[in-house]
C-alpha cells in the first residue's frame, strides 16, 4: 500500500499515470453529463412550483458542490504538503485553485440567472447560500493572489497552505454567520427546497457524478502542467523532452 503510494507520488510516475488516467475520467464524465443533461432538460417533468426554470439546478448544484470540494482538496493537500513535505501535494493545491474558482463563479452565475425569474432580481443579498458562495470566491481570489505575489515556489506553497487552512475554518463560520444574518433580514421569501421526484433526483445525482469525474480529469491535467514546471530542472524531464519519440 505505502510503496504504491510512494510510487504514485514520485513526479515522473505521476506525470505518466495522469496522462493515461485523465481521458478515462473525462470520457465517462462527459457521457454521464450528456445523459444527465438530456434527462434534466427534456425527460424529467417540470417542477410544479418553479416550472421549467428548476432545470437550472442540473448545472447549478454540481458547480456549487465542486466549488466546495475543490476548496477542501486545496486545503487538505496544502496541509499534507506542510506536514509531510510532500511536493506533489502542493502541486495539487496549486492546480485545484483556478478550477475551484471557475466552478464557484459558475455556481454564482447560474444561481443569479435562476434568481431572475424566481425572485425577480439578479442578485438577492438576503440569500445565505449566495453570500457564502460569494465569500468563497473572494477566498479563492485571495489564495491565488498570494500565490502569484510570492516568487519563490516553495515559499508560495507553504504560505498559501497556511492561508487555505485558516480559510477552511472560516468557511464554516462564514456559513453560520451569514445564515444568522439572513434570518434577521428576511425581505424576500427565500425559496424553500421542495421535495424532488425520484426521477429528478437520479438525473441530478448522475450530473453530480459526471461533473466530479470531469473535475478529476481537469485537475489531473493541471497538476501535470504544474509538475512539469516544478520539475523542469530534473533529469527525467530532460530525458523525456529530448528523447527521440518526445513526450507531451
Amino acid at each position, binding site marked *: 500500500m505505502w510503496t504504491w503510494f510512494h510510487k504514485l507520488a514520485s513526479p515522473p510516475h505521476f506525470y505518466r499515470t495522469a496522462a493515461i488516467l485523465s481521458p478515462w475520467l473525462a470520457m465517462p464524465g462527459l457521457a454521464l453529463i450528456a445523459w444527465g443533461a438530456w434527462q434534466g432538460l427534456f425527460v424529467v417533468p417540470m417542477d410544479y412550483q418553479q416550472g421549467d426554470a428548476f432545470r437550472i439546478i442540473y448545472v447549478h448544484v454540481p458547480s456549487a458542490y465542486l466549488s466546495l470540494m475543490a476548496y477542501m482538496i486545496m486545503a487538505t493537500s496544502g496541509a499534507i504538503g506542510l506536514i509531510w513535505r510532500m511536493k506533489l501535494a502542493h502541486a495539487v493545491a496549486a492546480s485545484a485553485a483556478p478550477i475551484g474558482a471557475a466552478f464557484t463563479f459558475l455556481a454564482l452565475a447560474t444561481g443569479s440567472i435562476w434568481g431572475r425569474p424566481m425572485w425577480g432580481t439578479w442578485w438577492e443579498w438576503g440569500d445565505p447560500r449566495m453570500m457564502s458562495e460569494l465569500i468563497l470566491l473572494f*477566498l479563492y481570489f*485571495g489564495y491565488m493572489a*498570494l500565490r502569484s*505575489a510570492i516568487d519563490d515556489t516553495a515559499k508560495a506553497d507553504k504560505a498559501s497552505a497556511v492561508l487555505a487552512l485558516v480559510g477552511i475554518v472560516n468557511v464554516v463560520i462564514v456559513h453560520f*454567520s451569514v445564515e444568522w444574518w439572513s434570518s*434577521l433580514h428576511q425581505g424576500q421569501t427565500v425559496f424553500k427546497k421542495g421535495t424532488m421526484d425520484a426521477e429528478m433526483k437520479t438525473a441530478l445525482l448522475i450530473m453530480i457524478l459526471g461533473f466530479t469525474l470531469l473535475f478529476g480529469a481537469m485537475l489531473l491535467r493541471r497538476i501535470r502542467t504544474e509538475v512539469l514546471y516544478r520539475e523542469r530542472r530534473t533529469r527525467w524531464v530532460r530525458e523525456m523532452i529530448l528523447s527521440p519519440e518526445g513526450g507531451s
Partner: protein
Amino acid sequence: MTTQERQIPGMFTGLFAMTRRDLLLAWKRPGDVLNPLFFFAMVCTLFPLAVGPSAEQLEFSGPGVLWVAALLSTLLSLNSLFLSDFEDGSLDQLLVSPQPLPVLVLGKTLAHWLTSGVPLVIVSPLLAITYRMPPSVIGVMMLTLLLGTISLSLLGSIGAALTVGLHRGTALLSLLILPLAMPIMILGANAVSLAASNDVYTTGIWALGAYAIASLSLAPYATAAALRISNE
C-alpha cells in the same frame, strides 16, 4: 560557561516583555496609533456626506457604518504589524529567541489591540452620538467593538505575517483578510442593529465572544507558522 542550568523565563514574562516593547514603540511614534483613528473618524464623516444627513437614515445605518469603518481602520494599522521588525532584523531575533514564537506573536498582537482596538472603542461613542445612537445602544456597540477588535487583531496578524516582505503587501493584505473578517463584522454590526430596534442581541455578543476565544487559542500558532515561512 559556568551557569549552564539557567532557567529560561516563563511564557508570561516573554509575552509581557513583547507587549511592553511594542507599547513603548507606539508611545514614541504616536502617529502610528493616531492615523487609523483619524481614518476611522473620516470614514464615519464621509457617509452622511454621501447619503444625506436625514436623521432616520443615520439612525438606521449608524451601526453598520461604524463597524465597516472600524474594520477598515484596523486593516490599515495591521499592515505595519511586522513590517518594521522585518526591516530592521528584529524578526530574526524573535525567530531565534528562547521564547516560543506563538507567545511572542501573541504579545505583539496584544500590543496591537491595545493601540488600535481599544482607542477605537474609546473614540466610537463620540461618532455614535453624531449618528443619534441612544446611550444603551452605544454600550452594546462598545462591547461588540471590544470583542470584535480582539478577533480582528488576531486574524489580521495571520494576514500581516503572510504578506510581510512582499512588494504589493498592502493591497494583498486587504484581499486576504476582508473575506475572513466578514463574519466578525456581520456579528458585530447586526448585534448593534438589533439592540437599536430593541430586539434580543445577545446571540451576536456570545458568538463574538466565542470567535474571540477561538482565535485567541488558534491564531498565534498560524501567525507564528506564517512568520517562519515569510522570513525564510
